[in-house]
């Protein structure tokens, strides 16, 4: 799992590439924890490079979503591959997250 981070104003944009599974879920959780603890609660996850997500990955996304929403923040998801979108659909997670076709659309939605 490769993680990248950039900022756009007060929004943190993280790129996830590879497999988000039981092995990499802890690493991703720590990264998200770090970002949130630094005071940034507006996140965009660019999932263009995400090839697989397991139940561990889904749980990490959900628990982090709850943390930021308690602080009036959000985690917006962008650029999902169809197989990842299918997992989100099956799990019922598409109703929990705000999902966008592009990273820009996710960023702009914070201002709308």
């Amino acid at each position, binding site marked *: 799992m490769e993680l990248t981070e950039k900022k756009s104003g007060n929004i943190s944009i993280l790129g996830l590439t590879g497999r988000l599974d039981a092995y990499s879920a802890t690493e991703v959780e720590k990264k998200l924890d770090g970002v949130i603890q630094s005071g940034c609660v507006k996140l965009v996850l660019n999932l263009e490079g995400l090839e697989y997500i*397991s*139940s561990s990955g*889904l*749980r990490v996304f*959900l*628990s982090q979503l*709850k943390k930021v929403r308690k602080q009036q923040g959000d985690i917006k998801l962008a650029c999902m591959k169809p197989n990842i979108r299918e*997992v989100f659909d*099956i*799990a*019922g*997670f598409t*109703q*929990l997250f705000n999902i966008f076709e592009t990273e820009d659309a996710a960023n702009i939605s914070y201002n709308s």
Partner: protein
Amino acid sequence: MQTYRAQYRGKLTTPEQAVSGIKSGSTLVHGLAAAEPPALLQAIADRIRAGGLSNLSVHSLLPTENVSKTLLSPDLADCVQAFSWFVSKSSRSAVRVGLNYYVPNHFHQVPRLMRENLDIDVTVTAVSPMDRAGFFSFGTANDYTSTVARCCKRLIVEVNKNMPRVFGDALLHISEVDAVVEHTTPLIEFKWPGPKSEDDAIGKLVAELVPDGATLQLGFGGLPNVIAMKLMGHKDLGIHTEVFGPAMVELIRKGVVTGRRKNLHPMKNVFTVAEGTGEMYRFMHDNPSMESYPVSYTNNPDVIAMNDNMVSINSIIQVDLLGQCNAESLAGYEYSGTGGQLDYVRGAYNSRGGKSILAFYSTARKGQVSRVVPRLDSGAVITTPRMDVHYLVTEHGAVNLKGKSTRDRALDIISIAHPRFRDSLLREAENIYLL
């Protein structure tokens, strides 16, 4: 009476208060299907959402809407470890993506498996109102619920006036209960798809295999219910079943089921779970012919075999040319569960004059796919092994596989496939040297 009423009043509380003592990391088992207690499940879900409870292990069997709307809701997936002992519409998607784990089992072993392998902190279930002797009834869900109610650390019951009071070994005393809440709401009703064009033929073929005086087990789902309607011309049938369903009520009311010729529990309709309509639940209430027992008894193959002419009727998804039956997986994923199928397949065959019947439509997907296949799909699960299969029935015929060679089995199975697929199945049978 006063003593029991006083105990009841002392234990009566609100759903919120009743679940307030549940700790993070607890293991919870809830009543099955219509016995899922909505108010208690909602109160637990509310606690989780408020941040007061996490890492809760929840065990369900055939979860339905009261638990799917609460503890199995997607937004709680990070706080609830969910386990399904039989997968249902409510848990199938979560099982498919690893957010809910199937627990393989024979239904008759579930009470023991839960007692010996789970350290159960809390059991919650719906029960009927307490009687003057201080007893509630487990009503529609005796199964494993009556066992886990007695081996958990805390038992909370939700009294629902719509839960039928049934007989048999189905009672729970107020002294055994830790907390009581009252919440009367209609019980969940189960409805099946309307009849298919193949049903008439399958029903007639199955009915021909059922002798007068037989004791019946009918599986869960649409086809077994349709088959029951084809038995209206029979005499003195009996019921010893896992799931009691609406079609059985019709058979009883019409005098087809009398139970007179049962060796075990004559004149009684024996079951462990009831899944049906409000009308069916009302029929069951305070009806002395309705006897419920733990599934470790009703589904014990040795007990099943005690009735002569026991006939079990269940359905499958797919059968291969060896006679291996898959009743629980679809496209490599767990679709339902083993349930009590093999319990009854074995018990019925061991009964004197008994028969086990596995009925299925010969095709799926509007006739495009044969359910008779040369080999089971990759990842498919064998629910009933070939050694156990007795009768197979489709709309094209009925065959008895017992004592037959692999060659004769393959030919028999192909003979009940849809005619459009028979040539290719014969070629495949030759290719794998079954013929």
